[in-house]
């Protein structure tokens, strides 16, 4: 690289406004490898009495060290030597969110030299699901009408974190399934780890990756098998770490308005699995101009007077608003009602409409399909064929067409996926951790949409969409 290129590269790094897809490693065994050897720099230690000693040792091995602690342990922050740590990761359960909002600003003010990150510990192991669940040598009953067996994804959780922790890149972790049955867990594979890393990267979130004891030992003992696995994981971590020169955000034209930010909400999980790009909003967001860009707004919170006027306004200007199980008296009810079925009534307002569903969503799968229908063919941002195990997230610069599509295949084996994206794109370039940037794919344009075929999506893939034949922006 010549000096000019070097300067340009640094300028791009300095100009970057967002970075995500960072992998924090949780290492529990005593024999820690140097950061340079492990290939990742951010290390997470659990809070304990000797954590400062451990942190010092880890720092000397080249790590940026974070200590993870529960909110009720926060007082212990004053006991540590801040110079040994990069930051504190607050492990926060859903029920503690209100307390966090009060204590976090105080902690930040009291310890300006430390980064404070909020961790959602309630992630799921990303995986393709079957109808059978094998646990500790036994097959147990699974399945319910709302728990579709196809995939476990953390997309809804990330969307919720984006809403709750504005200003911080979502950070989550999960426990590997069966990890509580020590000694009986099926060996985790390179695909398991790579999928976890790929998922966080595709969702532009950060992940604390828990390394199982077997892998830690293997890496410490320089076992070739463990290192072959880890090298694949590292290639995914490199692929998924984003430093963008432009502020990219997830594109979405469905808004879900909720009072409770509950990641177990099956409606959001089903919207995610059906590849319906959505954003989570709180009731207060609805009152602001934040809801302008959505074609469908699904409201799960009971609207107050101001919110219901805002809903009426959105509908009048052409949006479809779905109000779920929110009985009451609202301005649109003075309009003529069309009964859709026993549970649903539609009110036409100006160019749009308000649909009232008189009961909670009993079938999230059907509800997600209904939302796709309500969007109308012309407003569907993207569609996937043969993509039952694939989740795709479109990104764009605000107000511009989709620029990047991140894809994750939970089946972990090469899959031919047909994709349709709203917009007219002349250049489609595809990259994966296995195949560096970029392979050109053939776009087929029709009716305002562009179709292309991804030949072999294994775990992670990234598609760059350009409106000109020339390269619009240089991917990293």
């Amino acid at each position, binding site marked *: 690289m010549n000096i000019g290129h070097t300067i340009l590269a640094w300028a791009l790094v300095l100009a970057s406004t967002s970075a995500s897809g960072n992998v924090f490693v949780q290492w529990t065994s005593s024999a820690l490898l140097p950061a340079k050897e492990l290939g990742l720099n951010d290390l997470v230690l659990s809070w304990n009495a000797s954590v400062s000693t451990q942190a010092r040792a880890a720092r000397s091995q080249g790590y940026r060290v974070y200590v993870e602690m529960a909110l009720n342990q926060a007082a212990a922050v004053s006991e540590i030597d801040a110079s040994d740590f990069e930051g504190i990761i607050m492990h926060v359960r859903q029920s503690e969110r209100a307390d966090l909002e009060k204590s976090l600003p105080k902690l930040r003010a009291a310890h300006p030299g430390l980064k404070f990150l909020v961790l959602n510990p309630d992630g799921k192991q990303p995986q393709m699901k079957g109808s059978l669940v094998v646990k500790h040598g036994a097959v147990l009953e699974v399945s319910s009408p709302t728990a579709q067996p196809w995939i476990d994804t953390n997309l809804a959780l990330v969307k919720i974190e984006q809403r709750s922790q504005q200003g911080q890149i979502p950070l989550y972790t999960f426990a590997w399934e069966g990890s509580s049955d020590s000694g009986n867990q099926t060996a985790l594979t390179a695909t398991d780890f790579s999928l976890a890393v790929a998922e966080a990267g595709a969702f532009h979130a950060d992940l604390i990756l828990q390394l199982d004891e077997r892998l830690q030992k293997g890496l410490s003992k320089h076992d070739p098998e463990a290192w072959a696995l880890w090298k694949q994981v590292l290639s995914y971590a490199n692929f998924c770490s984003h430093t963008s020169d432009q502020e990219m955000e997830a594109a979405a034209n469905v808004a879900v308005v909720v009072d409770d930010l509950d990641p177990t909400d099956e409606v959001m999980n089903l919207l995610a699995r059906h590849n319906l790009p959505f954003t989570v909003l709180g009731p207060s967001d609805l009152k602001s101009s934040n809801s302008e860009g959505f074609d469908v707004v699904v409201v799960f919170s009971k609207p107050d007077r101001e919110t219901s006027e805002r809903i009426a306004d959105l509908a009048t200007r052409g949006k479809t608003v779905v109000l779920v199980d929110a009985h009451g008296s609202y301005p649109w009810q003075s309009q003529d009602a069309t009964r859709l079925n026993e549970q649903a009534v539609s009110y036409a307002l100006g160019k749009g409409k308000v649909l009232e569903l008189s009961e909670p969503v009993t079938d999230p799968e059907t509800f997600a399909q209904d939302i796709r229908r*309500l969007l109308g063919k012309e407003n569907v941002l993207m569609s996937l064929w043969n993509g039952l195990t694939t989740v795709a997230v479109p990104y764009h610069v605000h107000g511009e067409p989709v620029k990047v599509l991140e894809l994750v295949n939970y089946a972990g084996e090469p899959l031919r996926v047909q994709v349709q994206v709203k917009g007219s794109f002349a250049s489609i370039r595809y990259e994966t951790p296995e195949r560096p940037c970029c392979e050109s794919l053939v776009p087929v344009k029709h009716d305002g949409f562009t179709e292309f075929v991804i030949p072999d999506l294994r775990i992670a893939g990234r598609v760059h969409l350009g409106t000109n034949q020339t390269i619009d922006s240089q991917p990293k």
Partner: protein
Amino acid sequence: MRFDKRRAAALVCFSLLMTSVGQSSEKQVLVYKRKYIMGTIFEVAAYDRSPEHASHAIEKAFQEIVRLDGLLSDYKPDSALSDLNRSAHFRAEKVPSDLYRVIDQAVQFSRLSDGKFDISVAPLVNLWKASLRGDGTPSRAQEEKVRSCVGYQKIELIPPNQISFRSPCLQLDLGAIGKGYAVDRAAEVLHSMGVRDALIIAGGSTIFAMGSPPEQPGWLIHLRDPSNKIDPQVMLKDGSVSTSEQTAPSLLGNDSAGHIIDPDTGRPLKTVFAVSAVSRTASASDALSTTLLLLGPAKGKAVLKSMADVSAIWISHEAQVETVIGNPQILLGGTLQTPLSLGKLP
């Protein structure tokens, strides 16, 4: 007719009591694998003394399903079925033996059901599939045009391996039988490799039980119950069960789209039932469950009288139950669990 059984897939559930690794005196080990094939998730749980052997056998079974997907898929443009759909109009085409066999079996079910089961409904399925994806309800004119292409009588089978379509627009869709056929072939592969006790599941909606878990009389399978009141179960050994159910009605619309099309009306089937059908082979249970859903209980029971080793149950959301009890029996209300001490569900 339907293009797949995805709806029902999520709703069939299973419970089994299994021998933990190393617990049994015979040291039968359970190996479980899953793979995404044919647009759905196939799962195999197999007992064997050698986990390596069981694992290898399951991989071979999956390879067989992948091979069949390459023949029977209507999604893959280079499949044998896609070739046939492109070129067999008024012209006899040679086809691979597996494709011939599965079409032959499908036509037998069409005859048995007087055309209710019909693999030639593909054009109608595609029309309504587009409606499910938000394209709006098809017009009567569109429906009529497409209906003229449909009819199993227009499929001419010329033994041993040729097929011709007596229509300029006939198209076949094997979604109602192809997965069952693949499950049967996968079971053959497992058997040929010495695996005797295994469960093969295609998308949750079609299950084939080989042998039984160690020291158990069979594989206990809980069937789909839209009412959540009946809890039907079957103890399967060397047999198969499949479940069919129409797409759930829209929560926010008044349209009548659905993935199972009635060939008589050309429109999505309207039914209050989910149907589970038990038979000796997965091909038969797969085709039979769709057939029985389309026929309804009264006509369905009449068809089953002419068949051996079959059982079936229709259950509505309001817990209306209709059964045909053959061998093996479908039992209601958890009656299998207590006498056989199969353990409690978590």
